[in-house]
């Protein structure tokens, strides 16, 4: 049986007798601890944190510490998210992460979905080529960084390029 909060096997089984009806709960070690230490009045953990924990664990499987350290430093050139950040938050930084972290994400995705190929609906108007949009994410970030570094010449060049993509002439 799986933990009711993540993909790990449930090893701790709790029967709550506070209500009229006993409630049975099944947790992995981590979530059992979280459950037992949370005070009654406290809110449940924010949705997603549990999944993030699950993902972090899955990535670690079968990797040496050095491998993992190297992997963690990999950075998406578009949004600047590191693999370490993803592993800890369970959230990717931008659409391009699916391309640049593909090798790392693929086993994870197979693990979650048992598949690697989308079937089903696709956008009718813009199913092809979103490279321009991805470029926009990168340019906006670079412009922000240029402004922060007070490199206004570069920032203004970047701004012009952003405008060219946002409003192509004739559109």
């Amino acid at each position, binding site marked *: 049986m799986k933990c009711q909060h993540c993909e790990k096997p449930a090893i701790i089984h709790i029967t709550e007798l506070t209500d009229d009806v006993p409630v049975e709960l099944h947790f992995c070690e981590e979530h059992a601890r979280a459950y037992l230490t949370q005070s009654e009045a406290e809110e449940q953990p924010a949705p997603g944190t549990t999944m993030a924990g699950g993902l972090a664990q899955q990535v670690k499987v079968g990797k040496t510490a050095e491998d993992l350290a190297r992997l963690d430093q990999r950075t998406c050139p578009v949004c600047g998210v590191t693999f370490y950040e993803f592993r800890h938050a369970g959230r990717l930084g931008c659409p391009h992460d699916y391309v640049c972290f593909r090798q790392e994400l693929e086993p994870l995705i197979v693990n979650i979905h048992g598949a690697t190929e*989308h079937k089903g609906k696709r956008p009718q108007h813009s199913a092809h080529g979103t490279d321009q949009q991805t470029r926009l*994410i990168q340019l906006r970030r670079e412009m922000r960084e240029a402004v922060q570094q007070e490199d206004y010449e570069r920032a203004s060049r970047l701004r012009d390029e952003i405008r060219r993509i946002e409003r192509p002439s004739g559109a």
Partner: protein
Amino acid sequence: MKLEDLAGQSGEWLRGSGPESDIVISSRIRLARNLAEFPFIRKCTESDRSQIERALRERIAQVEEWRGLSYINVASLEEIDRQFLVERQLISREHSESEGPRSVAIDPHEKFSLMINEEDHLRIQVMQSGLDLQAAWERIDHIDDLIEERITYAFHERWGYLTACPTNVGTGMRVSVMLHLPALVITRQIDKVFRSLHKISLAVRGLYGEGSQAMGDFYQISNQITLGRGEQELIGQVRDIVPVLIDYERRAREFLVRESQKDLHDRVSRAYGILCTAQTISSEETMHLLSSVRMGINLGLIHDLEIPTVNKLFIHTQPAHLQKLRGTELDTADRNIERAHYLQRHLRKRDPSDDPEQN
């Protein structure tokens, strides 16, 4: 539309009608979508979030058939109002509790809502009373098309719709059916049922989704997989399991009626009695007792109460609803008193001969 106006109604998902509505509360589908030209929420600046918000708000405003939608700036709402929208399931808890520019567009009949800047840039969700996933799919497919006419979604030939979390990639779709399963809980079979659901990659959650416990014996069954299967296949997977669960629940109820009719009747009557007479009562206890009463009505053990009324009480006794209906903020102790009064007012104003206090 004011939130106060919403408070008085039950909303689509608690209407209590539709196929199999004695056990199936509602059918729900959500789609996760992101705009191609912005980073995912985690890497968004305040200005990115504002631009996403503006782009989607403008698109929503252009659609003729959406003239009646209410557009609510969630970031500027008081906590109680955000909580109110969570209780109605019009926004998620994550959407309520996060920070930065975010909003929601709500259909006046509460049949769908569009959450902007949630975990993904856009979360479309449709709600349908009873078991009717096909109607829910047709509506959400249409909504998705309307938005996509002018908005470029992040989409990858191989991975499908790209989402902030890889657990949603592909269709970005979560199909869920909310069921009321009190007899399976009483007969302690619920666990066995959940184990078998997990084996076929279906997830089970409580009333308020991920991380929430099963309050009032309400359970949401949903698909876990979003990639590698088409929408119809994913819907079919959930839809096909529902009649099996309904059958289990009905059999558990029959078992209870057959083997322990007295105990069952006693349990239901006591629950009804407490709800009618308590002077102070918590939300949890209310949910728990209403669950027994709801089953009692379906089994013909209670005759002077109807399912839509009980459904309405489930939502109206939630903390934020109670305060909205009262028109003032109350602390926990005062809420428990107000809740008891509210229940009395709505359960005791019937034929005196049926009043449990006089029986």
